[in-house]
Each structure stands twice: as C-alpha cells, then as structure tokens.
C-alpha cells in the first residue's frame, strides 16, 4: 500500500460551478482513489494517536483535533502541484505532512514536511522545522512552501497573497492554498487580504473549514450568511460549497478553484461543510457539552469521511467490500480506535515519526535569545 510517485495532472478547465462537463475526480486513477483513502487513514491516525499521547500526559500545549475533518485536508491537497504553497492553521496539522504526499510519503524529495519533522514539533524537539520555538501548528518551511502562521486567525491570508504576488513577478503561477475556520472569516484581515487578491486576480484559494463552531460560538453568531462561501460575493469571486465529509467533492471543488487561480482568473473561496468532532481543543472536550447537545454532536459526526470514501471506492470497484471492512477506523471516538483499525504502513509511518521525535533532543535554553535579528544578508 505504499503510495506510488505518479503525478496526476488534470487538464486545465475554466471554472463553471455545477456545469463542469467532467469532474476533476474523473481524471483520477484507481490508485489515486485508494491513495485518498490511505491519506484519510493517515490524517485520522495522526490525530487519534496524538489524542491518546496527550491523554497520557506526554504532550504539551493544546491539541486542536482534525478528527472528522480529514477529507477537507486530503481532498484539497491532493490536486496541488508540488511547488504550490499552503498555509495551514491550528486544526490542520496533518496538512504539513500530507502536502505533496502523493509523491511518496517517505520521499525525501517531495515538497512537504516529513512526519519526523512534524512529530519533532509536537514533541518540542530541536529537530522541528521551527526548533520548537512556537507551538504546534505554528511551523512552516520556505523550502517546502508552507507558510508559517501566527496565532492570529486569518493572519496568513495577506502573507499568502504576498507570496503569490512575488511569484507572479517572477513569472510563476504557483497557487497558494490557505485554510481558515468559518469563525475566522469575521476578521478584518480576511477582508483586506481577499479584497487585495481579488483586485489583482492573484492565485489564492481560501478553504473555509466550516465546522459549525468557532470555539463556543455557533456559526449564526459569527456570520450573517447561511453559506460562508457567500462571503465571496462581496469580492465578485467564485464561492464554492463542498461537502467537507466527501473527499472527492472537496477534491472537485478545490480543483475548480485551483485551476481557476492557476489560469490567472484570481482567487476564490471554497467552503467545506464539516463538523468538529470534539471540543475546540482537548482542554475544551468536556466543556463543549455545555454548548453542543449530544444529539447535535452525534449527527454532526455521523458522516465519517473514511466511511464515505469507502463507499465511493466500493461503488467504483476500486475496493472490495471485504477490503473496505479490513481497517475500521471510521465512526469511532479516538480512544475507541486501536492500531488494528488502520493499515499497518499508516501506523508505522506515524510511529517512525514519533520514534524519531522521542530520540531527538530538546533545543538548548540559550536558543531563547537567538534569531531575533538576522545578522548578515
């Protein structure tokens, strides 16, 4: 089940929502389909493993689980060119290693982070790409084309636009994909950045992960729109709505936006409707019951992206029913899963990352005073 390094490239098409004669998914091979499922397992395993490690007291900081939202990351990343940029935020940790994973999870040449790097960050080790100076998702890599975020929500979108602008000046047309929660679309900088990108038709695609809640605040208290994608109308740019539980629908919609962007037609917003499985962060798991009923949570979680992906694969004949039942990670609370619920290479991939991290040293205290300024050019 090791992924192959084949590169699927969809033919460029204009963005015509709901009317596209063929869907992006139609150009995916059976291997691609199976790889999408694998990547869902990978994202899920990363998350459940960290949840367990955290519960055992082995990790510092707050864990913002992406459980139940994996299809947004996998589906949006799968169609990117290796040289495209991404800008993940707090709930997007798997994006760091899923970027360009199509070219081989363990391929050192791929333009994405290794699991060793990501685990080093989570475990506060000096081998983290940021040498563990800022926490959790606040890593990035210029070389790997991943923008480093601050905590300030929506704050990386103007940076994404700047990267796109610089790239255009250099004659490139790399796409920059940014992630954003639905609650964070209320930030002023969201507006300023997308307005600027729209004025200059920059290839910036903003994924809005609409998981219905911003911490303890429901959608209707942060946005006046039923579809957050409608924010796009304020900038005369496309606003697409994807089923965030369906990796293929995410893939289709994001590919529309990406091709639109790459063709020089400018930015768009892709809202992926999903649901946050747990509390805002692990510190909020218990308190979340105050503001979300059990029923709401159950119904929100009922459409597991792994299960939905399997249905697609079985329907298409890319997976037998027996194969589909082999690794049953879906529809389970993180703590209910065991390693047997995941393909062995998924487990070993992550485990190697953790092993590496555990074996790495923490950064020395003196580094606290370093790198305030670059000394020479």
């Amino acid at each position: 089940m090791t992924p192959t390094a084949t590169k699927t490239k969809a033919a460029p098409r204009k963005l015509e929502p709901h009317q596209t004669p063929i869907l992006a998914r139609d150009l995916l091979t059976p291997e691609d389909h199976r790889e999408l499922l694998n990547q869902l397992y990978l994202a899920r395993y990363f998350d459940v493993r960290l949840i367990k490690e955290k519960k055992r007291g082995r990790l510092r900081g707050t864990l913002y689980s992406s459980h139940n939202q994996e299809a947004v990351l996998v589906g949006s990343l799968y169609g990117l060119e290796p040289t495209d940029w991404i800008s993940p935020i707090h709930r997007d940790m798997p994006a760091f290693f899923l970027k360009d994973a199509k070219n081989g999870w363990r391929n050192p040449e791929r333009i994405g982070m290794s699991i060793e790097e990501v685990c080093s960050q989570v475990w506060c080790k000096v081998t983290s790409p940021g040498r563990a100076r800022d926490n959790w998702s606040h890593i990035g890599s210029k070389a790997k084309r991943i923008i480093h975020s601050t905590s300030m929500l929506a704050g990386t979108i103007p940076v994404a636009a700047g990267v796109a602008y610089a790239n255009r000046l250099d004659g490139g047309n790399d796409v920059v994909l940014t992630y954003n929660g639905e609650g964070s679309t209320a930030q002023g900088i969201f507006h300023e950045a997308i307005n600027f990108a729209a004025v200059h038709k920059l290839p910036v695609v903003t994924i809005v992960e609409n998981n219905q809640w911003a911490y303890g605040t429901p959608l209707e208290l942060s946005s006046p729109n039923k579809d957050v994608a409608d924010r796009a109308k304020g900038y005369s740019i496309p606003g697409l709505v994807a089923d965030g539980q369906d990796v293929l629908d995410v893939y289709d919609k994001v590919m529309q936006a990406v091709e639109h962007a790459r063709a020089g037609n400018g930015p768009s917003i892709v809202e992926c409707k999903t649901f946050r499985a747990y509390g805002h962060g692990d510190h909020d798991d218990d308190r979340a019951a105050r503001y979300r009923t059990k029923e709401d949570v159950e119904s929100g979680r009922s459409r597991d992206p792994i299960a939905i992906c399997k249905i697609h694969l079985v329907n298409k004949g890319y997976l037998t029913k027996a194969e589909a039942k082999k690794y049953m990670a879906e529809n389970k609370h993180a703590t209910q899963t065991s390693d047997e619920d995941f393909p062995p290479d998924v487990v070993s991939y992550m485990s190697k990352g953790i092993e590496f991290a555990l074996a790495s040293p923490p950064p020395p205290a003196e580094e606290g005073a370093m790198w305030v300024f670059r000394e020479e050019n």
Partner: protein
Amino acid sequence: MAATLDPVTTKTNYLNALKSAIDEEMGRNPDMICLGEDIGILGGAFGVTEGLQAKYGTHRVMDMPISEAAIVGVSCGAALGGKTVMAEMQFIDFISCGFDQIVNMTATYHYRTAGEVNIPMVIRGPAGGYGGGALYHSQMNEAWFANSPGLKIVCPSTPSDAKGLMISALRDPNPVLFYEIKELYRKREIEEELNAGDDAIVPLGKARIAREGADVTLVTYGQNVWHCLEAADNLAKEGYSAEVIDIRTLVPLDEETIIASLQKTNRLVVVNEAPMTCGFAGEILARMTTKAFRYLDAPPARVTRLDTPVPWVKPLELHVLPSVEKITETALQTIRF
C-alpha cells in the same frame, strides 16, 4: 457565580475573584454589558464570565464574532450610547488586532471631545508568560498602551486586588486596560478571603507594599510580584531585607509610595516580564531616576524579559523571562554596589 470553596476556610482564587467583581457590577449597574469571544454560552476560555449569560441574558453578555477591532469599536460605541462595557480579549495577545480602535478611537475620545464624552469601558484579558503559551499566548504588551495617552492600566497579583481593582475599573469613567495573570487564575497558594460589598474595593492608582524591607526596593507587578517575594526570601537568607512594591496600577502610577521606599532603602530594582526596551520597568526606572535621584546610592537596575518574543518550550522561556534567580542576583549586586 460559584466561588471555589476551600473545604475549611472560604478562600477564593484569583479567577473567581474577578468573576465575582464582574458579577456584582453587572448586578449593581443595569447599564453594564459584556462583549467578547465565547464569553456567553461557554463562559469564556478560562471561565471568567461563567454563568453570567444565564444570569443576565444574551443581550448583556454577548458572544462576539472573531473580530477584536469590532469588539473594541462596538464597545466604544455602546459606551458612547450610555453603557458601561466590559470587553474581553480571549488572550491579551490578540489585542494587537484591535489596536487602532483602542489607541486612536477609544483612548482619545474624552480628549478629542474636550470632555463631552467619556468611555467607561474595561478591556480585560488573560496575560503573561511562564505557562508555556509561546509567542502568542504569553504576552505582556502593556507598554504599547502606556505610551498611548488616555488609557488607565491595571494588573493585579492577588485575588483581593483582582476583585477590588476590577470593581474600581468597572466604575471608572475612563477606558481601563486590565491585565489578568492567567498563571495566577487558579493558583491555590495565593487564594484569599475576600471582602464583601464596597469593602472589597481597591482604588486605582495606589501601590501596595507586599513586603516591607530596608535594604533594597523591588518594584514590580503581576506574576513577578511572587517572584520578587521569593527573591526577598533569598535575600533574607543573605542577611538583607527587601521591600517589595506591587504597583497594581501602571497608569496612573503611585510614585509617592515608591519614592518613600527609596528614601528608606536607597536601592532600586524594577522587575517586569515585558521586553526590556520601552517596557514599563524602564519607565519606573526613568521616573525614579529623575524624581528620586538623590536617594539612590547605587545604579538602579531592571530585570525584564530579554528583547525577544516568548519561546515555547520551558527552558527557552525561562531563559528569556525574569526569574527568582535573576532578581536575587540583580538585587544583591545593587545592594553590594
């Protein structure tokens, strides 16, 4: 509002002290409202407003969109419209996103209108380092606002001060920035019995002598008060007695109390966890040097954060922040000058 009850005494922690102040003021003042992210249904990221929405309604305790600038601007407008407003920043670090509305709109309103309008408003939020919060959940950025005329600035270090100063802030006719030290929120060791009613009030602009001493004056606030007290213990072991002054209010500053102490000790060490350059430690040092120069028998010193952000992992964080050791050492050097 349910205060944490100690099985034997009735001690309250810092967080519940704040909560009781806000609750009591909401009860006393029907024109008071609270705005912030997740402060209603959830009761706030740390629970400072827990239970208030159920008690006072969704209109008086409102969950805001993730829009710090609008939180401040809307609060300012509501104050213009006759309300007293408590605006929460989920972490004080995010205040940077509402910066213009604070320093240019709110802080100057009274000045611009030659006194016609005043803005009774408290902007409060969890602040400070030492908790592994990293760059954006550890800041003490009060100096930005100390350099922006029109804002009072408060930072309590004990539950009784937290309650007493919060009441004063909520009754003050001016905008007040209230820095809550999140590492003290639930610290058991510092729980206290609180006064009730108006007896609980602590006025703005009055420092507190946290410990009396004769050999050196340690001036500080917030989390560092506790570090200075520990340092004072260390100094006592060396045979020196340190006076620890918790200024509690930065703007306006109680200069008299510090000067009176310097008359006695003739030695000054200022401690705070913000970056050194243009931080409030330097301001205290500058004021005392200009106003109490003749009392100083040794160069005054400051112990501050290095001029760096606050890094994530503990050893790095402690490397850049003031510590009991650094304070003790600096105080010894100052005493032995």
